[in-house]
């Protein structure tokens, strides 16, 4: 009797495990193949002088996914801080997503450690190479702006900071995951209180780390430029990407996964509202950054925008079209579309606009990371990196995405689909408009 019951159990488990295992294996294989191609790009770019396009592409793919993960961490902590009941079933999905953070630290490692052993340490961040000739014709080592910034921008400190940021992200993700998963077993409500305290501290620490990570990883690519808005831009863009990704993720989980019948119209509506709110916030921040620099009109700040708008002769360059599409297609279209109530409750419309937002979020990442001044040429001018989408970017994007999805599936197999013993879980299940 017992052996047959066990056999039935094992069969049920293995058949259940099989369908899920397939997805996990598929995403792992996609992830490893994509990362393999992206790392091949890093290897091929090894000997290049100046900044390597393949290395920037790897950073773009990384930036896209880390923004979603950091946004997910912030959203979890904000939900706790506001004692939000409605988002509890969504919070569990984001907790699974956070299991990818340690892998992200590993994925970032080649970018930050390779310059230590390379002949051209400035292969990604040009300030790492003191021999690099800037657009003004002098080298980084002679550049007074760099010398002034050197106490912050130096390789040992940069490496330490990078792992400190990852340490903070992973620490808060781990604490919140443990508290939430532990509650599934014993239902001890004091875990919820602890999670709220953790979130209060975490919002400040993770917020600061995300800001400084954006300064170090992305803004320092063009190290002459500075903007205090940049960290807020990264936060706003990250939250937007997170909501868009969450809507798509919950759509798949609700239509063919374990959230069927749990994730309802009211959850969708609220995620749509937050998506709209952060669309406006992203536009507000991005515009404010540009507006202040435009009004003040100081050349050491304005060049960042002028290389994104005009070519050498003052005509529009290819980044001008990207800039305009960010204003009109990344802001106005989703904003006007999301204003309508029917958009936020209709599944195809909401998922469609989320895919749209994610695509333009990627373009926003390109816009912020890729354009950079090249070295001075013989005639005294310099080139700006043009807008191209290369195989290395796509490979990094798909590869890191595969790893994130793989981590999500693996983590989601270990716990209950929703935190059934959370004190507010009924609020979330019966959530209505």
């Amino acid at each position: 009797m017992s052996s047959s019951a066990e056999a039935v159990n094992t069969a049920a488990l293995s058949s259940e495990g099989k369908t899920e295992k397939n997805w996990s294996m598929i995403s792992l294989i996609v992830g490893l193949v994509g990362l393999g191609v992206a790392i091949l790009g890093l290897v091929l770019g090894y000997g290049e002088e100046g900044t390597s396009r393949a290395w920037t592409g790897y950073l773009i793919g990384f930036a896209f996914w880390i923004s979603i993960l950091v946004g997910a961490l912030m959203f979890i902590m904000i939900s706790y801080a506001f004692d939000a009941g409605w988002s509890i079933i969504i919070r569990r999905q984001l907790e699974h997503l956070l299991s990818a953070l340690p892998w992200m630290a590993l994925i970032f490692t080649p970018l930050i450690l390779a310059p230590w052993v390379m002949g051209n340490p400035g292969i990604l961040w040009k300030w790492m190479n003191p021999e690099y000739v800037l657009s003004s014709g002098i080298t980084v080592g002679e550049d007074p702006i760099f010398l002034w910034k050197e106490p912050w921008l130096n390789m040992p400190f940069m490496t330490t900071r990078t792992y400190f940021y990852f340490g903070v992200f992973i620490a808060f993700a781990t604490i919140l995951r443990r508290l939430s998963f532990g509650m599934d077993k014993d239902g001890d409500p004091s875990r919820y209180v602890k999670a709220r305290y953790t979130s209060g501290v975490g919002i400040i620490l993770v917020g600061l780390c995300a800001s400084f990570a954006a300064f170090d990883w992305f803004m320092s690519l063009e190290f002459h430029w500075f903007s205090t808005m940049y960290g807020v831009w990264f936060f706003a863009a990250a939250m937007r990407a997170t909501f868009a990704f969450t809507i798509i993720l919950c759509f798949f989980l609700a239509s063919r996964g374990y959230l069927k019948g749990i994730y309802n119209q009211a959850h969708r509506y609220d995620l749509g509202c937050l998506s709209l709110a952060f669309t406006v916030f992203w536009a507000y921040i991005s515009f404010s950054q540009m507006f202040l620099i435009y009004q003040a009109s100081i050349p050491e700040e304005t060049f960042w925008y002028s290389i994104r708008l005009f070519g050498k002769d003052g005509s529009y360059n290819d980044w001008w079209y990207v800039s305009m599409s960010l204003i009109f297609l990344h802001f106005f279209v989703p904003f006007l579309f999301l204003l309508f109530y029917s958009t936020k409750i209709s599944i195809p419309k909401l998922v469609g606009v989320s895919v749209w937002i994610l695509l333009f979020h990627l373009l926003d990442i390109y816009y912020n990371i890729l354009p950079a001044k090249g070295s001075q040429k013989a005639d005294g001018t310099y080139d700006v990196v043009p807008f191209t989408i290369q195989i290395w970017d796509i490979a990094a994007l798909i590869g890191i995405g595969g790893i994130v999805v793989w981590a999500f599936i693996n983590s989601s197999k270990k716990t209950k689909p929703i935190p059934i013993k959370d004190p507010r879980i009924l609020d979330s299940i019966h959530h209505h408009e």
Partner: protein
Amino acid sequence: MSNESYGLIATFDTSPAIYKAAKKVNEAGYTKFDIYTPFPVHGIEYAMGEKRSFLGGFSLIGGISGFAIGMAIVAFMNFDYPLIIGGKPIFGPIFPFPIFYELTILCAAFGTFFGMFIMNNLPRHNHPVFEYKDFGKSSDDKFMIVIETSDPEFDEGKTKTFLEEIGGTEVTLIDAPEKD
């Protein structure tokens, strides 16, 4: 008669009862009726067959006119008294954007606020339902439903029987307020 009285009021004891009653009144084809409850009953607007409010339309109209007013202010002032400041053009979409933006928000808020007044027929000093002597109970522990006499389906006898059939008690005809 119908000119003098406002409508028929019926009392219910529980929120599920009023919810079901609202559904039945809506299904019976009445359009001019309202429900009074001591606390918000979620989802009752769907049971009543209410459509989504047009209030968002007022916000949109307010917002768009605010944006246009902002643009008009800047255009009028800058073309009327041209002064180049900081090398910026006389008129452009970027440097005066805070003005467009602030006026968009201000007028959208005004549109929403006054739109709400218009849609709720506010301000008003009195409402005919206050003529019903027990109306105060609807803010304590009773749930009330009023079918107005101006409803095309209204017929005093039939509506009274209908309200009693669906479980209403103390079905009363509310008289129009006395004029001084």
